Structures are given as structure tokens and as C-alpha cells.
């Protein structure tokens, strides 16, 4: 099991381009609006604790004293009723799916360990997520018909990663170019990089 993030692009920060032609006003406005996490308005206290734990297991950031916030943005999306364009007929609407899914995760933890999901240590929480993903449910009734794997992958994880990789830290750690307008890129060929891109990454196998 991986214990720490390898940081192939350590030192690279897309925000260093803030005052360059890679950023325009509307993009600065969007990123500025994302700097401060919005207040919680959708989830209950109990749901919130489970959500924070889920985000921490989905996107652990042990190398960061101040991890990128994810949960507040999920809460804000659900509060705003932000849609995705579709809903499978066997899924409730996103807010209800989240509430039911978080309650079910908590029930899985209680059924296995006698305490809530937020009170588990990392390995125990991860084991529950893997079990849920493979359909091995300790408390199937708690899911109330919610397809467990679909909730985990398509409702929860997909939402979590969309938020994480929209934050400058998420973009920077993978060496992505980040905002690029009006200036785009010039060097398109293999292993070629423009001076305003991340330097070549450092990997053990290369």
C-alpha cells in the first residue's frame, strides 16, 4: 500500500502564472472565488463528519499540513441544486443519494466495528470502501436500494475528484498546465515543453 505521495512535480505551482498571459480575468475570478471554502448549508452535523472522513480517505494528503478542502464544495453544489444532466432511473436525485449513501457508509462501519465511519482509523475506513465497491455489504438494508458501487464511484468519487483537480494544488501535483488563455502552448511534440509549463517530472522508472 502506498504510504506517501511521490510528488513528481514538486515545486511546480500553476498559480505562479497568475500574472502571466496564461491567466485571464474571468479565470482569475473563478479561482479567486474558490479560495475560501463556502459555509456548510446542506449536510447535517452527522452527515458532515462522515463526508469529511470519506473525502480524507478518497484524497488523503499526508504531505500537506493544510489539505485541500473538498467537502464544503460538495455541500455548496448540493445546496445550489447543481445538476449533471442525467439521473439513472434507479438513483434518487443527487442530494438524496448523498444523504442515503453517507448514512449507509456509517451503518457499514457500525455493523463491522461498532462505531461510526468517522471514528475509524484509515485502514479500517479504506477496507469498508473497498468492500462497498465490490458489493460486500455488512448492512444491506441501510442502503435502502441505493446501488452501493454506483453511489461510491459515480456520485461520491467522481464529485470528489472533480473538485480536487479543479484546485490549483490538484492541477500542480500532476504537472498539468492549468489555465491557458489567452496564451496556449507552442511546443506540442513528445517530451517537449514550453517555458511556462511544469519542468519534466521525476519518476523512479525514468
Amino acid at each position: 500500500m502506498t504510504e506517501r505521495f511521490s510528488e513528481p512535480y514538486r515545486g511546480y505551482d500553476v498559480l505562479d502564472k497568475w500574472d502571466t498571459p496564461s491567466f485571464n480575468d474571468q479565470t482569475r475570478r473563478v479561482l479567486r472565488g474558490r479560495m475560501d471554502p463556502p459555509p456548510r448549508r446542506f449536510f447535517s452535523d452527522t452527515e458532515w463528519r462522515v463526508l469529511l472522513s470519506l473525502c480524507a480517505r478518497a484524497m488523503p494528503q499526508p504531505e500537506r499540513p493544510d489539505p485541500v478542502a473538498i467537502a464544503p464544495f460538495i455541500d455548496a453544489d448540493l445546496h445550489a441544486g447543481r445538476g449533471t444532466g442525467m439521473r439513472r432511473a434507479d438513483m434518487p436525485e443527487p442530494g438524496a443519494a448523498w444523504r442515503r449513501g453517507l448514512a449507509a457508509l456509517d451503518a457499514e462501519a457500525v455493523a463491522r466495528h461498532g462505531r461510526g465511519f468517522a471514528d475509524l482509523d484509515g485502514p479500517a475506513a479504506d477496507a469498508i470502501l473497498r468492500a462497498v465497491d465490490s458489493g460486500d455489504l455488512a448492512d444491506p438494508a441501510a442502503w435502502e436500494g441505493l446501488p452501493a458501487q454506483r453511489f461510491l464511484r459515480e456520485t461520491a468519487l467522481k464529485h470528489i475528484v472533480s473538485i480536487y483537480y479543479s484546485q490549483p494544488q490538484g492541477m500542480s501535483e500532476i504537472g498539468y498546465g492549468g489555465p491557458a488563455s489567452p496564451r496556449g502552448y507552442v511546443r506540442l511534440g513528445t517530451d517537449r515543453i514550453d517555458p511556462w509549463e511544469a519542468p519534466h517530472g521525476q519518476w523512479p522508472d525514468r
Partner: protein
Amino acid sequence: MSAGAVSHVAEDRPRATGGRAPDVFSRSGWVPMREHALGDEVDFAIVGSGCGGAVLATKLAEAGHSVVMFDAGPFWRPLSDFASDEREQDKLYWLDPRLSDGDDPLEFGANNSGRNVGGSTTHFQMVSLRFRPDWFKSRSKLGYAVDWPVDWREMWRYYAEAERAMAISGPISYPWGPKRGRYPYREHEVNAAGLVLARGAEALGVAWAPTPLATVSAPRGKSPPCVYRGMCKIGCSTNAKQSMLVTYIPRALAAGAEIRDLAMVGRIDTGPDGRVTGVEFHRDGGWHVQKARNVVVAGYSIETPRLLLNSACGRYPNGLANGSDQVGRYLMVHSNHAVWSEMDEEIRWYKGPPSMACCEHWNYDDDDPSRDFHGGYSFMSQGPLPGDFAGTLVTATGAFGLDLRERMARYNRMAGLKIVGETMPQADNRVTLSDEKDGFGLPRARITFGYCDNDRRLYRHSLRFMSRMLQAAGGHDLLETSSTAHLMGGCRMGSDPETSVTDANGRSWEIPNLWICDGSLMPTAGGVNPALTIVANAARIGDRIVAMGRKGTI
């Protein structure tokens, strides 16, 4: 006050009002727009402003007809409205839910549905391929599906017109299909992600090509050349992309068409003689009626059938143009299966349009012994943005934790190949109305979809082939994923009123002044991205309606 000094937010209030519409080539400017009173009976009310509506509105207005075109979404100025940000740019998609069921429920939103003036072309990936000529007679010539009521040579002329109108940048010599003239603009330099496809194709002995793309490789009017920022799927902020918004829409306005943004059409009205009389639309907080001599539905494969079904009345209890129970049926998508691999080099697939190299080998090779399916598929190199790719990873694998972060850390070393795979038209793949209502009180669409055996054989074949190709190109640690893209059919045109909704001119069999002009007309899906075909077909229909108008036979 200084007009336009403070531009209001496009999502909140209509912009095309007061005799002017946004100048899409400016940050806050305007162009004049002709306006019609609600009580004026205009020649054509067109519902939808994408590849179907925008092209048709242009043709009709340029021929002197009075036209009002409606779109449910905003009227953007890309230079000031489009950010370099995946989450922000969700605003381009149709995000109101559709209910999805069936054996293989479809996804909707980013992959197939726009909601703004210009339709899905504000976020399409600009791949502009022609149908193989035989596909217009796939039943007669290839033994599957149905024939189009149109001759390929006629379509071929309109493809050339569409390619000129959208200034397609493509190779001088295209390896597949009949000889064609050169593309209007020179091909783009192929990025590293495309060169992976090229290397693999050469290793396997099949042809490849720089993808013909609707983004300019040199200046064109007020469009600057593409700067390869790679965010085509979330909206082009420089106007290099030749979307409907910056090509046909300005032409339509200049020719006198009126556009109503943030105007959701909820119903088509009919008169005592059974003809349509106009449309009911919601704008600026209330419902209004626009009178029209003809109504054209151009809302694409979900909204077009939805509107026809939602317009049911005493005379047409099952919806308009639905006397043969064909509205909403034969909905098709493209299978969008992909193989991804790690490469030893840094590819940095975020640079440039996402699909700069393509392969149509399996659209044209009928004789290979491995071919175990009808229809065809093309495939292209890939360049998903981080959030998009991370979503693909978690959906396909369930990865989370540091394992997921490490996989994403390989983002710059990934390459991928993804198909545009033909699916067969099936009567039970269809759009119906659900019991749920949207914010306008209109029943939401329910979409039922399932692959047939042929569809599955096709995408399985593609996964085997693309895996071999990626390995031949040096890829390792392969991952296969499944998804769908595009919409076709749902109100198909044909030669028989019993098995189609409209004739070859897009005129509904049932109501002579009700027309359809969008991708829902397509009887088959083909193995290429549909936008260019929808534009060409709309241009063809436009010319036919204009000709009928001159003869007095509309």
C-alpha cells in the same frame, strides 16, 4: 448611461433584446438584431440554435424569410464569459436531469448536450468527418439498418459547403473514401498524443490522418488561429473554434434572423385545421406565444421528441407528428469505448485539441477476417482535462486514496484511443415522457437505451484493436473504459410515413407546416462524429425549403 459598459450575466437575463444581440467577437459589444412582435406571424419559428437550427435560420433568413430562433440557454461572448476551468464551464451543458434507464443507461450532459446559443458546438471537440458514402444506403449496400432518403452525392456537395462555412483545417490528402477537394485550412501540427496513434497505426499497417478539425490553423476574419490551449471541450475562449456561435449565428443575425436566448419552448400550438400556429415559450419570467406560419424543431435527439410529445392536444393525443408512433424511437449514440496506456515519454495530452489524429480504417475495411460486426468505428487520440480523466478513472476502477493520486500523477505520461462506434437503430431505444416535471412544469424526458449484440461485437473488436495499437506504440499498463457520446435519431427522416417522422426535407408527414432539422433526423449513426453531417444535412434542407418557398409549395 453607457450601453454595454456593465454587461449582465448571460445566465440570468436574456441578452438578445432591444434590437441588439451580443457581438460574439467582442468582450462586451453588440450587433444590431431585427425583432418581431409576438403577434407578428413570422415565416419560421425555429426551436434550437445548434448545428440544425443555426444553419437553417441562416439559409432561410438569407433567402428573405422572417425567422425567430429560440434557445433555452444563454448567449455567450466567449472572450469574456469562458474561463479556463472545467467546473466553471459546466455552464455550457444541458444540466437539467433526464431520466435514464434500460439495459445500458446513457449519460447525458457534457458528452452530448449543450444548452446555449450555438448548441453543443460550443463544447464539441471539432472532429469533422464525412460519412462513408455507402452509409446513406447501408441497408441496400451493406446489409444492415436502413437507407437514408438522400443520395450520397447530394450530401457530398453539402459536406463541402459545411467544411467551407466552418473553415475546417485538415490534411491535403485524406486516406479514406472518395477523392475530395482540399480542406479550406491547412492541417494542424499533430501533438504528442496524436503521434502515439500515428506510431501505432504505422506499426500495425493501417492508415492514419491528422484529424480534420473545426478550429482554424490560420486567421479567419475575427477568429485568430488556434493556440492549442486544449480546452475545446469546455468552450473556446479565443474564438478559434468554428462553432455555430461564431460562424452561422452572426450570419443569421446579419441576414435578419432574430434570436431569443434563455427562451425555453414548452409547447407547439395547433389550430383547428390541424396545422401548427406558433410556439409557447418561457422567457423573462413568463410564458409567451410567438405566432408562426411554420415551426421547425431543432432541439436535438432528446429535446426535439420531448417537445413534440409535450405538445399533445385533443387532435394529436400522442404528440405531434407521432401518428405512426415513431417520435422518440430509433435513438442512437456512439459507443465511446477507450483504451488508455502509460507511455515512457511525457505526452502532455492537455496541449492542443483533444483528438488531433484519427483512424477510419474500420469504417472502410469490409474484408478483414477479424470483422465480426456491421457498421463501423473511427477512433482518435485523446486529451482529457484532469477532472474529466480523474472521473473516468474512478468510474472505471473505483480507485481512491494515494493509489488514485499516484495514478493521476501519471497524467502527463498517458495516451489514449477512443472510438466513435456506430450503434444500430432500434425501435425500443427511445425517448418518452416521465412523470417528473422540470422547473418550467414540463415533463422531463426519460431515455431507454440498450446495446444490441452487434453493438457489443463492434466495441469489443475496437478494444482488442486499440489495445494492440497502443502496445505497438510503446504503451503499457493498459486500461479499458466504456462510455457513449453523441446522439442521433429519435425523429428519423425516411421514405415511408409508417416508419419515419419526416420526409427527406425534414417536413413531418403528419403536419405540413411542422418541420424537424437536427441530428434527430439521422436514420443511422455512422462511425464518425455527427456535427458535420448535421450541418450538411441542415444546409441541404435549408436549400430545399428555400426552393419550395420560391415555388410556393411550402
